């Protein structure tokens, strides 16, 4: 007998058969757990998306009805200056809002993770509160606060020497929206980064402390790389949201904000084209183009990050 192979107790043939039957049955049964969600997913998400693409290829006219027009709606959208200025506006918005917000969120997450601030739990809870505030209510509150005629923040700007400050003017409207969105989302991002930081193994940090590594270096060189997956995820999710900016500018526009045109963002463009203009086919084409823009920008943000982390 070959000495290298330890004699194993032979498994009874029956149990082997049962086991393989199990695994085969298990495979098929798994589908039934996913099936209920899948039905909803296909009917209420994939099918509408397919229908959007389908409608975007047609044009409905009052005289002549609906006819197949191929790429006509796409050409019209791609040549629309208003659509593209909206796209560029949300890209600028995302490029400023997301890094600023993530920097603030990472700073406070680190503070709470280290336990450097007093009353950390209380502050963490307070910072998270805006997550529970609907964007509509958040935008309404800030509209009241910043309103040019009676808003308390205008008085504040006046008393600080900035007379005639108009937060709703065309020059300040984008920064205003950036502040509102930072107010809404920093706490949520902070909590996710905080939980990520909590899971960094304690002995790694202890080793760094014993090596007399300064604290800022521990944060930047040890902790930051270890929570990079969470940061990448947050960049990805926030980008998708930022490119679809809609609620805040719409509510602000109700407060007689001349600086917000009906096509201020791509989603507002789509909303107005469809609901006010009744041009559903054109709106569908714009929605599909926006989807492509979102895919390109958010996915490429993943790749840029990945390559940088490999270097």
């Amino acid at each position: 007998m070959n000495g290298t192979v330890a004699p194993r107790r032979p498994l009874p043939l029956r149990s082997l058969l049962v086991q393989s039957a199990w695994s085969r049955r298990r495979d098929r049964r798994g589908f039934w757990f996913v099936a209920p969600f899948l039905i909803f997913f296909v009917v209420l998400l994939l099918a509408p998306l397919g229908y959007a693409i389908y409608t975007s290829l047609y044009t409905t006219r009052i005289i002549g009805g609906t006819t197949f027009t191929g790429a006509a709606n796409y050409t019209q959208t791609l040549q629309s200056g208003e659509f593209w200025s909206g796209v560029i506006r949300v890209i600028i918005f995302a490029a400023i809002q997301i890094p600023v917000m993530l920097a603030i969120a990472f700073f406070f997450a680190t503070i709470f993770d280290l336990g450097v601030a007093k009353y950390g739990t209380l502050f963490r809870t307070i910072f998270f509160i805006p997550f529970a505030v609907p964007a509509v209510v958040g935008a309404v509150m800030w509209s009241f606060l910043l309103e040019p005629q009676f808003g308390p923040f205008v008085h504040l700007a006046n008393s600080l020497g900035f007379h005639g400050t108009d937060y709703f003017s065309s020059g300040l409207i984008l920064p205003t929206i950036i502040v509102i969105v930072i107010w809404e989302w920093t706490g949520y991002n902070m909590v996710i980064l905080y939980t990520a930081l909590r899971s960094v193994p304690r002995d790694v940090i202890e080793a760094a402390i014993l090596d007399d590594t300064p604290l800022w270096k521990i944060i930047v060189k040890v902790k930051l790389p270890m929570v990079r997956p969470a940061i990448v995820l947050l960049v990805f999710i926030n980008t998708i949201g930022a490119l679809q900016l809609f609620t805040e500018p719409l509510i602000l526009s109700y407060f007689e904000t001349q600086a917000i045109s009906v096509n201020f963002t791509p989603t507002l463009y789509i909303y107005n084209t469809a609901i006010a203009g009744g041009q559903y086919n054109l709106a569908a084409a714009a929605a599909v183009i926006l989807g492509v823009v979102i895919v390109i920008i958010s996915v490429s943000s993943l790749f840029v990050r990945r390559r940088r982390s490999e270097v």
Partner: protein
Amino acid sequence: MSATTVVRPGPEPGPAVPPPPRRRRGQDDNSIPIEYYGLRRGTVTAVTTLCVLFALFTLIPIAWLVINSTKTQANIFESFGFWFASPFVFGKNFALLFQNVDGYGVYFRWFGNTVLYAVVGGGGATALAALAGYGFARFHFRGSRALFYLVIAALLVPITAITLPLYLTYAKVHLINSVWGMLLPSMVSPVGVYLMKVFVEVSVPRELIDAARIDGAGELRIFFRLALPLMVPGLMTVLLLNVVTVWNNYFLPLIIFSQNQLYPLTVGLGLWSERAQNSGNAEIFPLIVLGGLVTIVPLIALFLILQRYWRSGLLLGSIAN
């Protein structure tokens, strides 16, 4: 199979070792005492000051909302924004929320609608996500990986590209101004499925399921009696996220509802804001302010009560990817 032998992990496992001395209040277990960091004097004060400043930034709009919900129309505009003014009319404003002011709709009707949409939509989404997440995490059937990636890819689809065609379809099948038109799409939560899958992978051991199978338990029984109790912290997180998502949803109900008795709070408040400015009828402003306050109070309360769940559940965020 015996479910009784399964130790259900608490949402937050306590420290295994006795707490180190001089633990700072509010700090979780497993923290390194801050004395070891070799901080300069004054760092704690400086950092705490920054926390206070950001807390002020966070709380100022909410404080303004609380204070101004007690004011009359004129005082909202004329009195100092961050202090109370007489007359104190919170009760009168609150009573108006039950009435149909100016024929745009009744606030508490919208409140009831929102609760219905959030509970049924968010609950349904969580149930579907729990089943699907378990299926994706613990089974490998043909095409399961591809399906999972398809679900994740759906995150990239703009909300307009789904909502507009839904609206067009509803118009054909008479679902415009139907509660189902709001409830059914709210039950699709790809993020929920993703989070549940990750959570099942870390909290429901494969060996446990295999052991139950050898004992002859059926798959459904294993799911409900064995896996589900282990999934509770993750379920609560996903439920909270889904309820908040539906509660805060604006675009879908804005598009599909034209009758104001079906509106959720977000659409109702948006309508009031628009009408108050554009029709010159500014008597609605106190209602917008108090209505905003009543909208956010239940969710903030829910979060404070269920805090321990979302904190453990959000650990997923760190495991993700």
